[in-house]
């Protein structure tokens, strides 16, 4: 489709650009007044973008002469990313970490990063894939280091950008080799030509695809490109950590599936084997490294590496069922992980601690928050009847169907290991006496938001209809 006709289908992205600029302008005009005006304007912008995404809907179209693909797959990820961003904006309003004077820039960046993530989810050309990945990365570096007067935040940004720049440079080198072998930058055309080339030059194809995996693997924090993630998650402001662990990871998986499902999966290299080893290593590393952690943010960082491993399990199958299981798990992961991070924000704000010790006796000080945290943590472990169980069940079922029994066993064993470190927080909250008996009071809005995470975390564990809906979608209409 040509440029002019494409614009109609590109409205969500355009709305995001307009609102990113509007937020900056609004911030300039209203300088000095400490209100949440910019945050509300950003939320309104995201609402408009969501409506635009739904109005454009599930069409199968190639936009801008095959640069961008718009299909159900992209729409799904756009909605996930929009929800995660909106929640992050509300988190930032609740949390008192941010300098009120810099809020305009912060919200403008949070909106602008959506543009990159949208394009990651819908890229059909390696040029767009690389540009969108870099857009997201550059913005995340700034967001991670946003607390300029906090050494930990600056250090997080510093480590993030060194790892990120090397990873994306490596990916670009791989992309250039793939371009050289196929003479095209379209992902689908590369996929048509690559199998033939791979049969005559297997090493060249293998090396370039591993190089490309460095870039995407770094975005989803998979072993061996995970090293940045604990440090960045610990140092960054908590709302940004929550955002990176959900939205950034989701966008990374979208790009990963686009690249491997359409292009590289078809080559005669045994990707399923290679990637399932990566997946097993990722979850094992994440879970083992989480065991001794005292800082809850860092613990959740390792836990999100482990969840990246579980998600990777669905991707490695390179099948429709696997992809649908990944999408279903991503919905659930979004609710339970954002919920857990919201509790971390509330506790950090009221108790002033990010360590497990700060959670001691939370059940008597703030019963509802403690119970909600127990639900999130058990759901992250994958205990029935919570949503995490449903997500893992679907993932493991897809893996077993492909006869990758060892991978399923590794996954189950990992879930057992993960129970240990989640339980440590639960134990501190429920059984350890607190030094401070004073009850904590939270605003009504915060409690309502917490409820909005608790309900889907319980509901999706009992009510699996959304998965049946996903399962019945014909794949070629959904992604293609």
């Amino acid at each position, binding site marked *: 489709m040509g440029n002019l006709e494409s614009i109609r289908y590109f409205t969500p992205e355009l709305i995001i650009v307009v609102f990113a600029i509007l937020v900056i302008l609004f911030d300039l005009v209203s300088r000095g007044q400490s209100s949440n005006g910019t945050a509300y304007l950003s939320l309104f912008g995201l609402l408009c973008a969501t409506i635009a995404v739904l109005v454009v809907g599930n069409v199968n179209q190639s936009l801008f002469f095959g640069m961008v693909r718009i299909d159900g797959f992209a729409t799904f990820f756009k909605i996930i990313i929009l929800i995660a961003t909106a929640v992050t904006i509300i988190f930032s309003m609740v949390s008192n970490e941010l300098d009120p004077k810099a809020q305009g820039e912060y919200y403008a960046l949070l909106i602008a990063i959506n543009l990159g993530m949208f394009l990651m989810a819908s890229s059909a050309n*390696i*040029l767009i894939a*690389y*540009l969108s990945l*870099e857009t997201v990365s*550059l913005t995340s*570096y*700034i967001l991670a*280091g946003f607390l*300029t007067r*906090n*050494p*930990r935040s*600056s*250090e*997080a*940004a*510093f*480590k993030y*950008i*060194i790892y990120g*720049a*090397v990873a994306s*440079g*490596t990916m*670009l*080198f791989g*992309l*250039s*080799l793939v*371009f*050289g072998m*196929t*003479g*095209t*930058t379209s992902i689908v*055309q590369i996929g048509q030509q690559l199998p033939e080339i791979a049969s005559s030059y297997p090493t060249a194809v293998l090396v370039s695809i591993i190089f490309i995996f460095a870039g995407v693997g770094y975005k989803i924090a998979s072993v061996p490109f995970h090293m940045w993630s*604990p*440090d960045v998650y*610990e*140092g960054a402001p908590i709302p940004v950590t929550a955002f990176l662990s959900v939205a950034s990871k989701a966008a990374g998986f979208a790009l990963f599936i686009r690249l491997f499902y359409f292009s590289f999966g078809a080559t005669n290299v045994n990707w399923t084997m290679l990637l399932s080893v990566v997946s097993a290593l990722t979850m094992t590393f994440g879970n083992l490294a989480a065991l*001794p*952690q005292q*800082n809850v943010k*860092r613990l959740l960082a390792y836990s999100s590496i482990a969840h990246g491993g579980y998600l990777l399990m669905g991707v490695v199958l390179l099948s429709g069922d696997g992809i649908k299981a990944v999408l279903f798990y991503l919905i659930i992961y979004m609710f339970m992980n954002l919920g857990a991070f919201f509790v971390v924000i509330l506790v950090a704000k009221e108790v002033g601690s990010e360590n497990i010790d700060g959670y001691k006796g939370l059940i008597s000080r703030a019963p509802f928050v403690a119970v909600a945290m127990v639900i999130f943590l058990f759901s992250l472990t994958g205990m029935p009847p919570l949503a995490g169980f449903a997500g893992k069940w679907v993932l493991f079922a897809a893996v077993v169907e492909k006869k990758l029994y060892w991978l399923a066993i590794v996954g189950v064993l990992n879930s057992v290991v993960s129970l240990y470190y989640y339980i440590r927080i639960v134990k501190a909250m429920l059984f350890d006496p607190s030094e401070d008996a004073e009850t904590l009071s939270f605003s009504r809005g915060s409690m309502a938001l917490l409820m909005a995470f608790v309900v889907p975390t319980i509901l999706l564990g009992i009510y699996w209809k959304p998965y049946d809906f996903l399962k019945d979608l014909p794949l070629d209409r959904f992604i293609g």
Partner: protein
Amino acid sequence: MSNITLEHYLLISSILFTLGVFAVLTRRNAITILMGIELMLNSCNINFIAFSRFVKSPTTVGAGEVSLAIEGQIMALFVIVLAAAEAAVFLAIILSIYREFNSISPDETNTLKG
């Protein structure tokens, strides 16, 4: 005198890329690390430009001696812009690191561990 072939360009770009990775891994100064990263990106540019000259593709412009697969050139242009953006963000982060730690060595700015 023999002609310059694709292999020559690929050799140069591979050497540049390796040097870039080497600089990132061994240097103890953030500015030199940034230079290493720029080397990596520019080696990719050489690849793209060389391939666009030597590879035949459906979108090839021109014929014979002066044919070009134009996507490679476009990729290189975008990468140059991105490298500039990345350098800007990197330098800003280096500034804030220097203010907090009085050093721009990754070894001395290592408080987050575990």
